[in-house]
C-alpha cells in the first residue's frame, strides 16, 4: 500500500515544533496538535535557558511563528488525540478540536475580550498558578495561535448559568460564539510522533518541604516570578509579605531520585536550572544570598560544568552538599534542617524563600493515551526505546522525542526531534512532496525605472490603533505625500478581507509599492509579503510602518501626539518605499550527494539515514576500520549488546549500495558552499575528487590517556576504557576506581565527560556479578549517573560497591596503597588494590581544528566543535550545509550519539530533498566601479562570505547572512546591503521628523 505523505505530531513544545518544521521543510504535510490553547510548551514559560542565560521566549518565539505560517503545517491548538488505527505508512488518527467558543478564523488576538471580562483571579496555568487570568484569555502575549479561549469552568455563562455578554460586546470582530461545539476529525497520516513532553513534578505530597507555604515555590513558579512577562514583571518578591527575599534556598532532587514516591530516576536538568535561576537572581541583586542544597551536582552536558564553576566563582552561590530533612516555619521565616554531608552533621539555617527544584514527571493522561495506542512505556513511565533506536517506539511508524522518552534538556530534545523527523522522512520518502502545497505565483510586474505608485493601507487593528490614533487623519495626510496614489483605512489588515483588499488594489491601481501601517514586521511581514507575491508584486517592494507597538500602544494617553507620530512613521516608510528595489530570491541548486566524515557509530548512523532517504553518501574514515570507539565497548548500561549494535551497523553500511566507504582516508581541499562543495579524498593508495551538497562532521573523540596521573602505567593502573576490553579476564580481589581523572580541571579539559560515572558503575556491577567477592571502591567527586542511569548507582550500592567521595583539596594518593580521606568516618583510609581504574574523559579528535578550518566551522574552547546555537541548533553549524553529530559535538552516551546522527541526517535532508536552497535576498552587494579592493569588508565579515578577487570585493550570496556590517565599514560606499541601502535608510532618517 502506498504510504501517506503526512505526519501527526502530538505535542507543541519545542520538540514537537522543531520536528514539525523539519518535516514540513523536507516535503511532508504536518498536523501539529497541542492540548493546551497555544504551542510553545514549557520552554515558553522559562525566563532564561542554561548555560547561556539566553532569553527563552525570544529564541523560541520565531519558531512558534514560523510553524504557524508554514504552508505545510496545520497548528491545531486546544486539540487532543483520541485514538489511532491502521499501520505504519497509513494511520487514521482521530482528533478532537475542543471548542474555544471563539471562532479562530475571526479572532484577531487583540485581547479586548480578556480586558473586559469580569471573571478575574483565575490562577493562570501559564504562570504556574502564581499569576492570574480571566475566564476568556490568551495565555501569553506572544501566544501561537494568538486566539482567545473561554474557560467554561469559570465563565459566568457556562459555570454559573448567568447572562453575560461582556466579551462578546468587546469583540468588535465578532469572533465569540457561545454555541460553538467541539469538532472531531480523522487525520490520515503516514507516521505519528509523540512529543508529549513532561510536566514539573507536583510536590504537594512532600509535606516535609512545606509545599503549601506562600514563600515555598517550585522552580517553575520561580521561573515565572523572575520573568519579565510574568505576574510581577520580573520582580522577585515573597508572596507572604511582598518583600524582596534576601536569602533564598534551592532544594534539589524534589521528586527525583526518590523510590519512596515511585520516581527512581534523576531528572537531569534540575542542577543546571537551579544554577541558572540563582545566577539570574544574583544578576538582579548581587546581595541576595543563595544556597543550593544538593546531593550530587550533575553538570552533565555541554558547557554545564563551566556554568557550575561560574556559579561558584563569579556569583558566590553557596553549594551545600547535603540531605534536606525538612523545612519549617518560625517567626515568619523558613528554616531548613539538613545533614551537611561534608561534615556528617545535622544543621539548620534560615531563609526568606525556598525553591523546590522539582523533577520532570509524566502526566497520567498522557501515559494512558500513549499506552492505549499500543506504545510501550518503560519502568520509569516514559516511552520505551532502545539504545540503537532512541526515537523509535515498539510500534512501527510511531516515534517519540524529547522528555516523553526520558528526562533531558532542550538541546537533547531538539536533537531527538530532528532525529525523529529524519527517521520519519526516510520512512515515508516515497511519498515526499505528495501532500504538500506550493503556491504558483504569477509573473512579477516590472517596476524598474518607473515612477513609483505607492498604495498605503492604514490599519485600525480594531481599537488597538484606531482607538488612539486618528486614522482618517493619517490617511488624509498620507494622500498629500508625493507618489502616493492610494491611501485607505482598513479595520483589520491581517484578516482575509484585508489581504484581499491589498491584492485587489495592486491590480486595480497598478500599485508598484505597498506600505502597511499596522503592527510589527517581525510577526506580520511574511503574511503581506505573500499577499504581494500573489498579486505579482515583488515582496521586497513592500514596507511596514509600525504604528501599534511603537505608537498607539505606548502613547495611550496622548492621542494627538500619537497621531502626529503615526503620520511621521508612515512618512518614513513611504520615503523608504519610494526607493525600494525588487530583489531576486535566487535559488541555489543542491548537489544531492552527502559527505560524512568519520565512520564511528555516529557517522555510520548518519550515513545510513541519509541513504535510507535515497541520497548517495561518501563515508570517509581515517582508520582502516569502521565502528569507532564503540567496537571496543563490551557492555552497555541497560544490558543491550554493543557488539551486536556495531556489528549490524557495519554490515548495513557495507551492504548499502548508496554508501561509498573510504577507509584509511582523509578529506582535504574543501571548497564551495551549501549545495555545491568539492573536496579531495586522500588515501595512501589514491586521491579522488568528490562533489557533494552537504557535509556531516562525525569525527568522534577518544578516551584521554592519563599520562602522569596516579601512576598510570597501563598495567596495574589502567583507564576505564582499557578495563572495558579486558573486563571478563580481570583477576583482582580489590579494585579502586577513581573518577574525574583529567576532567573538570584546567582548560581545555574543563568539562564533565558525562558518561564516566555511568561507565564506572556499570563496570563495577559487572565485575560484582562475575565475582561477588571482589571489593570495589569508587572514589568520586559527584556521582553523575544522570537521568535513568541513576538506577545503576542504586544497584551498585546494593551490590556492595563502596563509594568514597574526594574533593580537589584532598585527592587520593596512589602508591602500593590508595590513600584517601573518607568524610563519613572523618579520617583517611588505606586500600590495597590489585587494580586501579582511572575514569578519564572523552577528548576531541586531534584533527578537529583542521577539519574545522576546511569547512569554516568553529571549535569551542574545549576543542569540540561549536554548533550554531547551543539550545536550538545542536547539530547545525552557523555555516549552512554543514552539520555535526556524536562525540565531535561533545562527550555523550551512545543513544544520544545515534539520535544526533539521525538529527544531522534529517537536517541535511532538507536541502538535499528540495534539491535547492533559497538564497538570502537581503545580502551585501558590491559596486565594482567604486570598489578599491581595500579588503576591509572581508575582514569585517563574520561568515567569511566576502573575498577579494582580482582586486574587487566579491560576495558569496550563499554564505552572506545579510547583517550589513561590511556595508557600514566600506570606506568608498561601494558595498551596499540590499533592501537596507544607504539611500533607503538615509531617506528614513531625513523624513523622521517634520518641521
Amino acid at each position, binding site marked *: 500500500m502506498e504510504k501517506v505523505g503526512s505526519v501527526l505530531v502530538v505535542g507543541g513544545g519545542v520538540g514537537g515544533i522543531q520536528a514539525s518544521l523539519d518535516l514540513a521543510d523536507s516535503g511532508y504535510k504536518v498536523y501539529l496538535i497541542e492540548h493546551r490553547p497555544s504551542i510553545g510548551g514549557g520552554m515558553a514559560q522559562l525566563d532564561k535557558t542554561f548555560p*547561556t542565560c*539566553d*532569553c527563552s*521566549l*525570544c529564541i523560541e*518565539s520565531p519558531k512558534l511563528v514560523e510553524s504557524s505560517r508554514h504552508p505545510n503545517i496545520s497548528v491545531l491548538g486546544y486539540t487532543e488525540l483520541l485514538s489511532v488505527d491502521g499501520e505504519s505508512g497509513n494511520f487514521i488518527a482521530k482528533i478532537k478540536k475542543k471548542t474555544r467558543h471563539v471562532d479562530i478564523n475571526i479572532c484577531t488576538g487583540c485581547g479586548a475580550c480578556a480586558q473586559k471580562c469580569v471573571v478575574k483571579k483565575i490562577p493562570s496555568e501559564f504562570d504556574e498558578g502564581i499569576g492570574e487570568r480571566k475566564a476568556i484569555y490568551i495565555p501569553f*502575549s*506572544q501566544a501561537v495561535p494568538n486566539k482567545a479561549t473561554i474557560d467554561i469552568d469559570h465563565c459566568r455563562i457556562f459555570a454559573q448559568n448567568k447572562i453575560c455578554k461582556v466579551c462578546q460586546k468587546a469583540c468588535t470582530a465578532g469572533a465569540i460564539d457561545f454555541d460553538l461545539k467541539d469538532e472531531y476529525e480523522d487525520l490520515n497520516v503516514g507516521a505519528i510522533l509523540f512529543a508529549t513532553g513532561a510536566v514539573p513534578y507536583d510536590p504537594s505530597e512532600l509535606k516535609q518541604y512545606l509545599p503549601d507555604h506562600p514563600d515555598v515555590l517550585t522552580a517553575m513558579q520561580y521561573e515565572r516570578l523572575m*520573568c*519579565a*512577562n510574568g505576574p510581577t*514583571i*520580573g520582580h522577585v518578591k515573597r508572596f507572604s509579605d511582598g518583600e524582596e527575599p534576601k536569602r533564598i534556598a534551592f532544594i534539589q532532587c524534589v521528586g527525583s531520585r526518590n523510590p519512596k514516591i515511585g520516581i527512581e530516576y534523576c531528572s537531569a536538568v534540575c542542577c543546571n536550572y537551579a544554577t541558572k535561576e540563582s545566577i539570574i537572581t544574583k544578576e538582579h541583586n548581587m546581595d541576595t544570598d543563595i544556597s543550593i542544597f544538593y546531593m550530587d551536582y550533575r553538570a552533565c552536558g555541554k558547557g554545564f560544568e563551566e556554568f557550575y564553576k561560574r556559579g561558584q566563582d563569579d556569583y558566590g552561590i553557596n553549594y551545600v552538599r547535603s540531605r534536606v530533612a525538612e523545612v519549617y516555619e518560625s517567626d515568619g521565616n523558613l528554616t531548613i534542617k539538613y545533614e551537611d554531608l561534608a561534615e556528617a552533621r545535622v544543621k539548620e539555617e534560615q531563609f526568606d524563600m525556598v525553591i523546590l527544584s522539582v523533577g520532570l514527571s509524566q502526566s497520567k493522561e498522557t501515559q494512558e493515551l500513549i499506552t492505549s495506542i499500543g506504545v510501550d512505556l518503560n519502568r520509569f513511565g516514559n516511552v520505551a526505546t532502545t539504545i540503537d533506536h532512541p526515537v523509535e517506539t515498539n510500534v512501527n511508524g510511531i516515534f517519540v522525542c524529547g522528555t516523553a522518552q526520558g528526562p533531558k534538556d532542550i538541546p537533547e530534545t531538539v536533537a531527538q526531534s530532528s532525529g525523529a523527523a529524519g527517521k520519519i522522512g526516510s520512512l515515508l520518502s516515497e511519498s515526499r512532496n505528495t501532500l504538500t502545497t506550493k503556491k504558483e505565483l504569477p509573473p512579477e510586474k516590472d517596476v524598474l525605472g518607473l515612477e513609483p505608485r505607492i498604495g498605503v493601507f492604514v490599519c485600525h487593528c480594531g481599537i488597538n490603533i484606531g482607538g488612539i490614533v486618528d486614522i482618517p487623519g493619517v490617511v488624509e495626510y498620507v494622500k498629500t505625500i508625493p507618489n502616493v496614489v492610494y491611501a485607505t483605512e482598513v479595520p483589520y489588515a491581517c484578516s482575509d478581507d484585508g489581504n484581499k483588499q491589498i491584492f485587489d488594489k495592486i491590480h486595480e491601481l497598478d500599485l508598484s509599492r505597498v506600505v502597511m501601517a499596522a503592527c*510589527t*514586521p*517581525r510577526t506580520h511581514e511574511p503574511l503581506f509579503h505573500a499577499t504581494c507575491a500573489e498579486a505579482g508584486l515583488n515582496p521586497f517592494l513592500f514596507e511596514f510602518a*509600525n504604528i*501599534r*507597538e*511603537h*505608537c498607539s*500602544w*505606548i*502613547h*495611550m*494617553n*496622548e492621542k494627538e*501626539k*500619537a497621531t*502626529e*507620530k503615526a503620520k*511621521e*512613521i508612515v512618512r*518614513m516608510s513611504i520615503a523608504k518605499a519610494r526607493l525600494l528595489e525588487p530583489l531576486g530570491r535566487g535559488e541555489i541548486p543542491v548537489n544531492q550527494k552527502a559527505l560524512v566524515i568519520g565512520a564511528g557509530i555516529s557517522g555510520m548512523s548518519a550515513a545510513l539515514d541519509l541513504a535510507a532517504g535515497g541520497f548517495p553518501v561518501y563515508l570517509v574514515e581515517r582508520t582502516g576500520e569502521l565502528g569507532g570507539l564503540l567496537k571496543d565497548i563490551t557492555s552497555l548500561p541497560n544490558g543491550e549488546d554493543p557488539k551486536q549494535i556495531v556489528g549490524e551497523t557495519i554490515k548495513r553500511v557495507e551492504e548499502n549500495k548508496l554508501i561509498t566507504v573510504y577507509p584509511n582516508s582523509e578529506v582535504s581541499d574543501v571548497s564551495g558552499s551549501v549545495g555545491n562543495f568539492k573536496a579531495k579524498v586522500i588515501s595512501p593508495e589514491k586521491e579522488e575528487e568528490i562533489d557533494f551538497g552537504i557535509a556531516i562532521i562525525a569525527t568522534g573523540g577518544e578516551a584521554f590517556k592519563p599520562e602522569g596521573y596516579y601512576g598510570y602505567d597501563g598495567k596495574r593502573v589502567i583507564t576505564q576504557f582499557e578495563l572495558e576490553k579486558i573486563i571478563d579476564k580481570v583477576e583482582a580481589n580489590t579494585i579502586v576506581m577513581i573518577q574525574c581523572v583529567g576532567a573538570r580541571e584546567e582548560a581545555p579539559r574543563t568539562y564533565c565527560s558525562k558518561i564516566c560515572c555511568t561507565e564506572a558503575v556499570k563496570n563495577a556491577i559487572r565485575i560484582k556479578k562475575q565475582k561477588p567477592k571482589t571489593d570495589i571502591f569508587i572514589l568520586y567527586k559527584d556521582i553523575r549517573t544522570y537521568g535513568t542511569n541513576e538506577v545503576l548507582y542504586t544497584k551498585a550500592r546494593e551490590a556492595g560497591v563502596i563509594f568514597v567521595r574526594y574533593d580537589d583539596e584532598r585527592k587520593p594518593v596512589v602508591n602500593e596503597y590508595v590513600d584517601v580521606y573518607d568524610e563519613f568516618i572523618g579520617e583517611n583510609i588505606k586500600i590495597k588494590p590489585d587494580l586501579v581504574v582511572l575514569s578519564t574523559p572523552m577528548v576531541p579528535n586531534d584533527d578537529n581544528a583542521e577539519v574545522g578550518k576546511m569547512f569554516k566551522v568553529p571549535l569551542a574552547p574545549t576543542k569540540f566543535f561549536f554548533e550554531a546555537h547551543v539550545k536550538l541548533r545542536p547539530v547545525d553549524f*552557523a555555516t549552512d550545509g554543514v552539520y555535526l553529530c556524536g562525540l565531535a559535538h561533545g562527550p555523550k552516551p551512545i543513544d544520544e550519539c545515534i539520535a544526533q546522527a539521525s538529527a544531522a541526517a534529517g537536517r541535511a535532508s532538507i536541502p538535499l530533498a528540495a534539491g535547492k536552497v533559497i538564497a538570502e535576498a*537581503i545580502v551585501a552587494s558590491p559596486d565594482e566601479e567604486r570598489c578599491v579592493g581595500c579588503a576591509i569588508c572581508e575582514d*569585517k565579515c*563574520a*561568515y567569511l562570505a566576502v573575498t577579494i578577487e582580482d582586486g574587487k570585493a566579491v560576495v558569496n550570496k550563499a554564505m552572506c*547572512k*545579510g*547583517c*550589513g*556590517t561590511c*556595508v*557600514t*565599514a566600506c570606506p568608498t560606499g561601494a558595498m551596499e*546591503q540590499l533592501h*537596507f541601502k*544607504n539611500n533607503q*535608510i*538615509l531617506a*528614513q*532618517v*531625513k523624513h*523622521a*521628523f517634520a*518641521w
Partner: protein
Amino acid sequence: MEEEWTPKITLFCCNWCSYAGSDDAGVGRKQQPPSTRTIRVMCSGRTDPGFVLTALMEGSDAVLFTGCHIGDCHYISGNYKAKKRFEMLKEILDEIGLEDERLQLQWISASEGSEFAEYIRKVTEEIKAIGPSPLRQEWMK
C-alpha cells in the same frame, strides 16, 4: 498653556533584539514619551556614522544605537563592531563639543520591554534637560 517641548530622538534598532524589545514594550503597553522615531536595521553593525551625522544635522536632538547584548548578536559579532564605531563617533562628537547625552548606546534584548521603555523615558528626560541640539541650529545658519 505652552506646550511642553518633546525632543526628537532617532533610534536605530536591530531586527533581532532591540526592535523586538521595543515591540515587547508595546505589547506590554509600557508607556513612553512620543520622542523617538525608529529605524530598523538587520543588525546594530549596520548603524552607519553617516546616518548618525545626517540625523543630527537634520534636527535630531539625540541618536541612539541599540542592539543585542554582547554575545547575543544574531550575526555573531555585529554589535562589537557597532560598539567600536560608536566609540569612534563619540570621539568626533566630543571634539566638536556635542553633549555626551546626544549619542548613546544601549543593548536591549527581545524580552526587555520594560527596560526599553524605562530607557526611552530616561533618555527623553536627559535631552529635555539639555534642550534642542545646537548642531541643527548651527546647520541652519
